[in-house]
């Protein structure tokens, strides 16, 4: 299983990939994850890979290979969609964050991205995870809302996911994140 988690630096993609990695590890799979740190993290386009199965070699996913892409932002979904394999699934948060070239007026934010991706024949689940996270009590738990949706499609028991969320997030944020997870899970 090859999962890509993409978004904008600072949105919490790293934590999401660690939750998924923990779940896969608990299931007894060989797991590899690849992350980005340093300059690449500063508000730029970020991608983390989580790969699990009987035996995993490469820690990265290439074009046309991903089973699932979880995107924290619409433009990032568009940027990385070519990494999806034929028949792969896209889970996308409908939030839009203008990149600097759009803010400075050098480029335009593409319109109707989700419709365009659907028109490519891709299975898309689009949700407003930011609103859900805000409702759950903390807008920073967008990542866990999206993991809730991912969980529903993972074929892995919901309780295992809940344990992984408990273990991965900071103690003071466990309650709000579990609520965010349940709301995401209930949606999908």
């Amino acid at each position, binding site marked *: 299983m090859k999962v890509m988690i993409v978004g904008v630096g600072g949105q919490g993609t790293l934590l999401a990939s660690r939750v998924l990695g923990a779940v896969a590890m608990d299931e007894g799979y060989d797991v590899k994850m*690849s992350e980005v740190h340093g300059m690449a993290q*500063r508000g730029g386009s970020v991608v983390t890979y989580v790969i699990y199965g009987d035996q995993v070699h490469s820690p990265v996913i290439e074009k046309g290979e991903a089973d699932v892409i979880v995107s924290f932002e619409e433009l990032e979904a568009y940027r990385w969609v070519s990494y999806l394999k034929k028949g792969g699934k896209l889970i996308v948060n409908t939030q839009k964050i203008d990149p600097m070239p759009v803010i400075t007026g050098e480029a335009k934010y593409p319109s109707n991205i989700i419709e365009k991706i659907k028109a490519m024949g891709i299975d898309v689940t689009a949700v407003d995870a930011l609103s859900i996270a805000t409702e759950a009590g903390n807008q920073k738990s967008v990542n866990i809302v999206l993991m809730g949706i991912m969980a529903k499609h993972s074929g892995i028991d919901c309780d295992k996911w809940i344990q992984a969320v408990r273990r991965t997030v900071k103690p003071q944020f466990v309650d709000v994140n579990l609520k965010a997870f349940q709301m995401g899970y209930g949606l999908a």
Partner: protein
Amino acid sequence: MLGNEAVARGAYEGGVRVVSSYPGTPSTEITEEIAKYDEVYSEWAPNEKVAAEVAIGAATMGARSLTCMKHVGFNVAADPIFTVSYIGVNAGMVIAVADDPGMHSSQNEQDSRHYAKASKIPMLEPADSRECKEYTKKAFELSERFDTPFIIRLSTRISHSQSLVSLEERNDLGVREYVKNPGKNVMMPAMAKKRHIDVEKRTLALQEFAEECEFNTVEDNHSKIGVITDGIAYQYAKEALGNQVNYLKLGMVYPMPKKLIQDFAANLETVYVIEELDPVIEEHCRVIGIPVVGKEKFSLIGEYTAAQIKEVVLGIPAPFKYQVEENVPIRPPVMCPGCPHRATYYVLKKLGLTVSGDIGCYTLGALAPLNSVDTCVCMGASVSAALGMEKARGKEFSKKLVSVIGDSTFIHSGITGLIDIVYNKGNNTVIILDNSITGMTGHQDNPTTGKTIKGEPTKAVDLEKLAHAVGIDRVRICDPFDLEAFEKVVREETEADEPSVIIAQRPCALLKSVNYGAPVIINQDKCKKCKMCMKIGCPAIFINEEGNITIDHSLCNGCGLCMRMCKFDAIEKVGK
């Protein structure tokens, strides 16, 4: 476990007692992890040279030691490392160096394997987290056996990938006896000449060892095609080629075996060398008479992919891909909302200054819309290069020139450049961007923060006194968010007829202690759409679909810099 965590674990289990490093992506987490073990002394040093020397001192006195750095950090540490190669070790010493193929967070793409050959220090290269732990642990033992430091070479995808690792107990051997031995430990010509002979003997012994080293492994899949590979490239090759070819995976990349490679290649029709960056293994193969396919088919640049390898070796084209016809705007990294550097660069741009830049988050000041930084070379170069700029173009030019350098980078190697400015009568203005932390690499303490790696209070370097002490008479401290005052200070100091230092003080917006309270909102009734607030390039400020300038509350941290930009008081705090 992250590759870097596994290196830390390997060192811990291998009985390391002293660790000294300077942070640098992708190597930073090794030392951060080590700091969690109470049995191990660990520290952030001012730079990689100092860190390596601390590790050398510890190993000489009988404690197993480790120093960690990124590839460009090795350049800084190279001086002591080349000579400790002659000295050797008392207790084991390991140098971990992390390369960054693809330059995720670096200014160049150098291949550290050249350093192993150049310094004659053996190098191991793990290909996943399990090997990171195993190789590091073993490296201490081998270091003592062969009387040389060992280098562990990592790369971004090894350091920052997670894979499974099993833990073992720590093997603490205590501190070895120290016996005074100037012939071995004092490197001056008479002694070094003798030691060089020993080094060459050692290299021969290591070449023998490479033939049977457990980290050089052959995988025979009864194919007529062979692949010789190392590190992360092995994983890509396995992903691409599975069991369709034979593999020789080199876990020891310096020195390399001869007979092992010759035997591996003996009955093969084609041998490919698959290695990222430079043709280090390839050239070795050619020297020992093995014809291989290497860089004529594979790139010298960036990271490899399994798809590429599959296409070259098996002739199978890349799989189906969804195509996006439209142009997707790039999303380069930006300074965070609330970043103090944003204000600094706004002022420097407004004044039309030439900016000699340096390494850190603040290098992002080169990008639109601030477009402020003119040059960036390496740690510390902002200061010394500015003196060169002045000497090239004269004192008047220097009055429209500033250096910008972070607090940690200034301590790393900016101070020596400042001394050069004073000593050689420069007129430069150096702005120290003092954000109270090492920002880019993820908030490490440094000599100016008053805390050690373990969070213990310690003396902090006083940058103001330091500048005075080296002979700078004009030292100003100013908050860049106070835009008017800061502009005045920069104007006065650049125009002055003597060198000066401006300490631009405001903490990194990501520090826990920084809390600007509620986000801000644009009152659309008052907004004249003059776009002044957009000149600072804050990622939270954008124009929405209705054409109104808007603030994204999921990004805004309420720093209020944009409020200071607005002449119409149209930006307001929503609550406290």
